[in-house]
């Protein structure tokens, strides 16, 4: 019993230390600044952004695609690895589920920010046409959000029941965990229903997750523009999303391990495995990138040539090569060697991959819009270019801070590593049962 109690004590949610509180305050400040900027946007309109007739999608949509990409990690780690029997991933499933929930919530909010007039959201439901990929996106995002919440909640039931008993000296916490545990006792009927639901969710989330990112890709691919006119965009986006999601999990799992001292649970093995996985995902994404750029570059129609030139050697070249080399090739080279798969290098590569993934979305959205098939002419000079304005950056950083805040709060109040599942996998519960007999 002592072993189990120690196990619970190590994994039970803990209060923030001073760094945690400082982190929360920092996020709060960024969010406050973004709310002020958003109020300004609401009052004065989207004219305060850098978006104009041509660059009508800007950093908000790049940010939205980034969030959608990150959210895909829930299906990768939880569902795909679970269904393939990769039990090593158990300690990081909760982290990936938390990231998925935070990311998909913020993806939905980012779209509302981009709309400019949030009170008109209901127009989508009243006047929306099923022929429009935007409606598909609304449907699939809301569906994915609900499934992600269920996928986060279901595995928490046994853990909530454990925490209900564990926090007997803190009645308030115990009461809340007890309510959330839904009378979980682990009886055969509950277990049967529980296993069935987890299996169902693991299967259900995969097509929906693929759907959400394919539909997001179709928002671009169904629009006839250089750089987007591709039948390959769905798989290309999914491959990129897996890279971004894996990078996000690596980053958060390193921080959680350091802060909560979970070296016994999130081990070097996990970083090694995640490093290997990231190499594989980066290679697949690199392959899709070669496909996306090589084929149009070979055929080189005029409009594609202008767009590709801006990426390869033009105004966007430094960013483009930084993203491709820094965000994909360098992680592959570092992580392919065993020394590179130690926690710290993997963590650094994870951050680089996430930052690269964010800018990659910016490069997908903006240069294309500034190179339409009909040349940009007869408009003010400023319309030829796009760079986010200060309010746009503030709001964007605010959304990123909100995602981090959701993750931070969920990490604070939920057991970040599944208590029951790890105890079962480590045989702790079995040992306790044997001792009891």
């Amino acid at each position: 019993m002592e072993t189990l109690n120690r196990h619970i004590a190590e994994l039970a949610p803990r209060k923030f230390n001073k760094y945690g509180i400082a982190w929360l305050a920092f996020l709060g400040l960024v969010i406050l600044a973004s709310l002020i900027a958003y109020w300004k946007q609401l009052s004065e309109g989207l004219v305060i952004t850098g978006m104009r007739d041509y660059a009508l999608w800007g950093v908000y949509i790049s940010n939205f695609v980034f969030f959608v990409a990150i959210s895909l990690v829930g299906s990768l780690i939880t569902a795909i690895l679970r269904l393939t029997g990769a039990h090593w991933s158990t300690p990081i499933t909760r982290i990936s589920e938390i990231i998925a929930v935070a990311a998909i919530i913020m993806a939905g909010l980012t779209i509302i920010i981009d709309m400019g007039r949030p009170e008109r959201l209901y127009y989508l439901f009243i006047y929306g046409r099923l022929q429009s990929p935007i409606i598909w996106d609304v449907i699939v995002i809301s569906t994915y959000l609900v499934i992600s919440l269920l996928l986060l909640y279901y595995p928490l039931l046994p853990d909530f029941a454990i925490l209900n008993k564990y926090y007997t000296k803190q009645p308030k916490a115990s009461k809340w965990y007890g309510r959330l545990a839904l009378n979980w006792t682990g009886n055969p009927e509950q277990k049967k229903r529980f296993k069935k639901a987890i299996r169902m969710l693991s299967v259900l989330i995969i097509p929906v997750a693929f759907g959400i990112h394919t539909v997001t890709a179709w928002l671009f691919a169904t629009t006839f523009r250089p750089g987007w006119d591709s039948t390959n965009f769905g798989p290309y986006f999914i491959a990129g999303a897996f890279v971004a999601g894996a990078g996000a999990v690596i980053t958060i799992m390193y921080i959680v391990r350091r802060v909560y001292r979970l070296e016994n649970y999130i081990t070097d093995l996990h970083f090694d495995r995640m490093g290997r996985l990231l190499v594989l995902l980066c290679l697949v994404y690199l392959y899709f990138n070669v496909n996306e750029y090589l084929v149009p570059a070979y055929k080189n129609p005029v409009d594609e040539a202008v767009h590709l030139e801006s990426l390869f050697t033009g105004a966007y070249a430094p960013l483009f090569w930084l993203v491709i080399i820094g965000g994909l090739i360098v992680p592959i080279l570092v992580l392919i060697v065993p020394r590179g798969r130690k926690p710290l290098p993997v963590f650094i590569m994870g951050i680089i991959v996430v930052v690269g993934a964010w800018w990659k979305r910016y490069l997908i959205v903006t240069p294309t819009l500034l190179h339409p098939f009909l040349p940009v002419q007869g408009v003010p000079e400023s319309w030829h270019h796009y760079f986010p304005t200060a309010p746009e950056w503030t709001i964007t950083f605010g959304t990123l801070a909100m995602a981090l805040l959701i993750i931070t709060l969920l990490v604070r109040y939920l057991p970040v590593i599944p208590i029951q599942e790890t105890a079962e996998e480590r045989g702790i519960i079995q040992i306790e049962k044997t001792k009891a007999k």
Partner: protein
Amino acid sequence: MRQGRHTYRFLFLGVCLCCISFASGQDEKNRVRVSLGYTKVMPATSALTITAKYRAEEGIVATPGLDFEVFRVLEADSMVLEGSARTNSEGEAVFKLKNLNSIQPDSSGIYTYRVVSLEHPDFSEAEKDISFREALLDIGISTADSIPQLTATLTDAYSGEALEELPLRVQVQRLFRPLRIGEEFYMTDSDGSVTVPVEPGIPGLDGLITLEVVLAENDDYGSVKALVETPVGEPIKNLSTFNKRTMWSPPSKTPLFLLIVPNLLILGIWGAIVFLVINLFKIYKSKN
């Protein structure tokens, strides 16, 4: 010394003039120029077109958002309020009149209307009268030597007399602007009639074309228009997808496959979600 006193007087006078001109400048409103037109579309649709303009720095421009009251002027110079109208962004307002058949004109068969602009912070009040007689324009289609012919007859509604020597335009109704037939205009004869052959080969859906005869902006009768739909055109097939279920249709005309397949998928997935939520409830209930 005396010269100095004059200088002070001139200065005082100058300041007063400046103040007066400034004060009057504050209240100065733009003078609105109103023009009125009368249009009748047979058999019984009559309207007044009110156009309001004013002189701005950039020239004569439209006066949008100006409210007018429309009065019918009676013989004893009394007036009956008919309604109100507001100019649009082009400075125009169309005021639909009551059926003139039910209204008695004055003793000489003339109807008189007056429009009066209401108070506006930027524009001064303005009014304008229009007087017109009511004309009737009857049209019909006949065939002579297997060529379809349009016959139009213009008469004065009050006296019943034929109106001769008035120009009538004959045209085919089209989406953006009418297609004129034959000459620029035809003068009515002593019977107030014109007869115009309709050229073969004018395309129309299922051969149907709408012919229009127009008396345009006449000083006495305003504009009078009569329409007739007749199957004398060259039949063409309707290529419009307006009523079809297409990817570019409104929500009510979504293609069936797009209604069925995604909705089945949505139902399937949300069915599973509902099942999972119910499952949570069942877990809650089966604690023992």
